[in-house]
C-alpha cells in the first residue's frame, strides 16, 4: 500500500455480493467510480448505497467480488493497510458524527494531532484554513451542540478534509438541510473537488440537485446498478425505476407499501376473531 496516492484514485467494485443479517444487500454488483470526479450514488432506501460506502472504506468485506481503490484490493487489506488507506479517505457521515465533548477546532484538529507530528502552531493554522473553507472559522471555539445541524455537517466536512485526502465520501450530505445550507453544501462539494481534484462520492436521494454537483451518477436498486451516466442521461432514461425515482412517483417498481396480507382479509380476520 502506498503512503499516499500519486493522482486522484479511481474506485472499482467488481462483481461484489454481500449479505448482512442473512439478507442479500448487493448481488453481482459492479461499479466504476471515475478518478477526480464527483460521482452521485443514488437509489431508494435500503438499496445498498451505504453498504457501497462501507465496502470502499473497508468497514465491510464482500462475500464475493473485489473492491479496488487505485488498483489496490481493499477487501484483502490487513488492518494496518486499511488504516493507511483510511488516512487518504475523508468521510462525512450522515449526521456529521462530531465529538460532542470537543469544540469545533479540536474536532477538526483531531486527525492532524493523531496522524501527524506537526507543531501545534501549524496545526492551528491548518485547522483555521479548513474552517475558513467551510465558512465557520468564527465558530472554532463553539461546541457542536451550539450549532445547527447544517453547520455541524460543515464542521464535519472540514474534519473530513483535514488530512487532504485523495477521496472524500459523503453519506447523505443534504438530508434535512434548509435551502441555504443545501446550496452551501453543494457549492462546497464542487469547490473542494475542483480545487484539489479529489475523487468524490456522494450518496444521496436528492435527484433534483444532482445536476448541480455531479459529473457522473448511478442509481442502485435491489442490489444492482440500474442506470449510470451523466446527470442528463438519467433524466432521459426510459428505465421504469429511474423514471419513478427521478419523478418521485409513488407507483412503480418500488412499492409504497411494505409486503403484507390483503387489508380487507386481515381486517375481516380480526373481526371474526373477537
Amino acid at each position: 500500500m502506498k503512503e499516499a496516492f500519486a493522482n486522484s484514485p479511481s474506485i472499482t467494485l467488481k462483481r461484489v455480493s454481500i449479505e448482512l443479517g442473512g439478507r442479500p444487500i448487493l448481488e453481482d454488483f459492479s461499479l466504476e467510480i471515475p478518478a477526480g470526479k464527483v460521482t452521485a450514488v443514488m437509489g431508494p432506501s435500503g438499496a445498498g448505497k451505504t453498504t457501497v460506502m462501507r465496502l470502499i472504506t473497508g468497514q465491510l468485506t464482500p462475500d464475493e467480488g473485489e473492491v479496488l481503490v487505485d488498483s489496490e484490493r481493499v477487501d484483502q487489506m490487513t488492518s494496518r493497510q486499511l488504516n493507511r488507506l483510511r488516512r487518504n479517505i475523508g468521510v462525512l457521515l450522515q449526521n456529521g458524527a462530531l465529538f460532542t465533548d470537543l469544540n469545533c477546532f479540536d474536532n477538526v484538529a483531531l486527525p492532524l494531532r493523531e496522524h501527524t507530528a506537526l507543531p501545534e502552531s501549524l496545526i492551528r493554522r491548518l485547522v483555521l484554513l479548513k474552517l475558513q473553507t467551510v465558512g465557520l472559522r468564527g465558530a472554532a471555539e463553539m461546541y457542536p451542540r451550539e450549532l445547527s445541524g447544517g453547520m455541524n455537517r460543515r464542521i464535519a466536512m472540514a474534519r473530513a478534509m483535514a488530512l487532504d485526502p485523495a477521496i472524500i465520501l459523503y453519506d447523505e450530505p443534504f438530508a434535512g438541510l434548509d435551502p441555504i445550507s443545501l446550496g452551501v453544501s453543494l457549492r462546497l462539494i464542487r469547490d473542494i473537488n475542483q480545487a484539489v481534484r479529489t475523487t468524490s462520492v456522494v450518496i444521496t436521494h436528492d435527484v433534483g440537485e444532482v445536476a448541480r454537483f455531479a459529473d457522473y451518477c448511478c442509481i442502485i436498486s435491489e442490489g444492482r446498478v440500474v442506470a449510470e451516466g451523466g446527470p442528463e442521461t438519467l433524466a432521459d432514461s426510459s428505465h421504469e425505476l429511474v423514471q419513478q425515482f427521478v419523478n418521485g412517483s409513488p407507483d412503480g417498481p418500488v412499492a409504497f407499501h411494505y409486503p403484507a396480507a390483503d387489508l380487507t382479509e386481515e381486517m375481516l380476520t380480526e373481526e371474526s376473531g373477537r
Partner: protein
Amino acid sequence: MNSASTPTRWLDPIRHLGRAGLFLLTAISRMRLTRLQAGETLRQIYFAGVRSLVIIVTGGFFVGLVLTLQTYDTLSRFGAADAVSTVLALSLFRELGPVLTTLLFAGRAGTSITAEIGLMRATEQLDALDLMAIDPMERIVQPRLLAGIVAVPALVLIFNVCAILGGVVFAVFMMGSDPITFWANMQATVELWRDFGHGMLKAVAFGFLASWLAVYFGWTARPTSEGVALATTQTVIATAISVLILDFVLSAFML
C-alpha cells in the same frame, strides 16, 4: 413467551462474561501510552473521579455517622464504647470503604461512561474514529479503563477520611468520648499493610472491575435509546453483584 430463547437465557451472564473477557483482552493488547492518550486519561480521571467527589464525601460522612451510632450503642451495653474507633476504622479500611465507594462510583461515573460510549455508537462517533484510522479502543476505552483504576482508590481514601470524620463528629462531639482515646485506639489496632494496604488493593481491583464493566456495556449497547438505558442498568447491576462476590473472594484470601 418465546420458548426457544427461554432455555438459554440463564446462560446470558456466562456469555456476557466471555465477551467481556475478550473485549478486555483486545483493549489491553492494543494498549499504547502516547502523549494524547495520557492527556485523555487525565481528562477521564477528572470526569470519573473529581466529579464523583460530592457523592463520595456526603456518602462517606453519613456512613461514618450511622456506623458509629450503631456501634457506639451496641458497645456501650458491654462497657466497651471506647472501642468504637477501632470497629469504625477496621470496617471502613477492610470492607466498607472499598465496597461502598465502588458502588457509588458505579452509580455516578460507571453509568455515565456506559451511556456516553453507547451514545457515541448510536451517533456514529465510534464509526467516525474508525474511519479516521483512529482506534476507538485506544482513544475511548483505554483512557476510561485506566481512569477507573486510578480514581477509585483515590475516592476510597477520601471516603474513608470523611467516614472517620463522621465518626469523630458522633463519638467525640455528640457523645462526649475522649478524643485522645478515640485516636489512640484506632492507631494501636489498625495495621498499615494488613488493614489499610489490603483495603487499597481491593480498591484497585474494584476500580478495574467497575470501569471494565462500564466500558464493556457501553461498547456493546444497542444503538437505540432503549439499548443505552438497558446498558446503564446492566452496568449498575453487574458491578454491584461482581464487586460483592469479588470482595468475599479477596477477603477470604487476605485474612
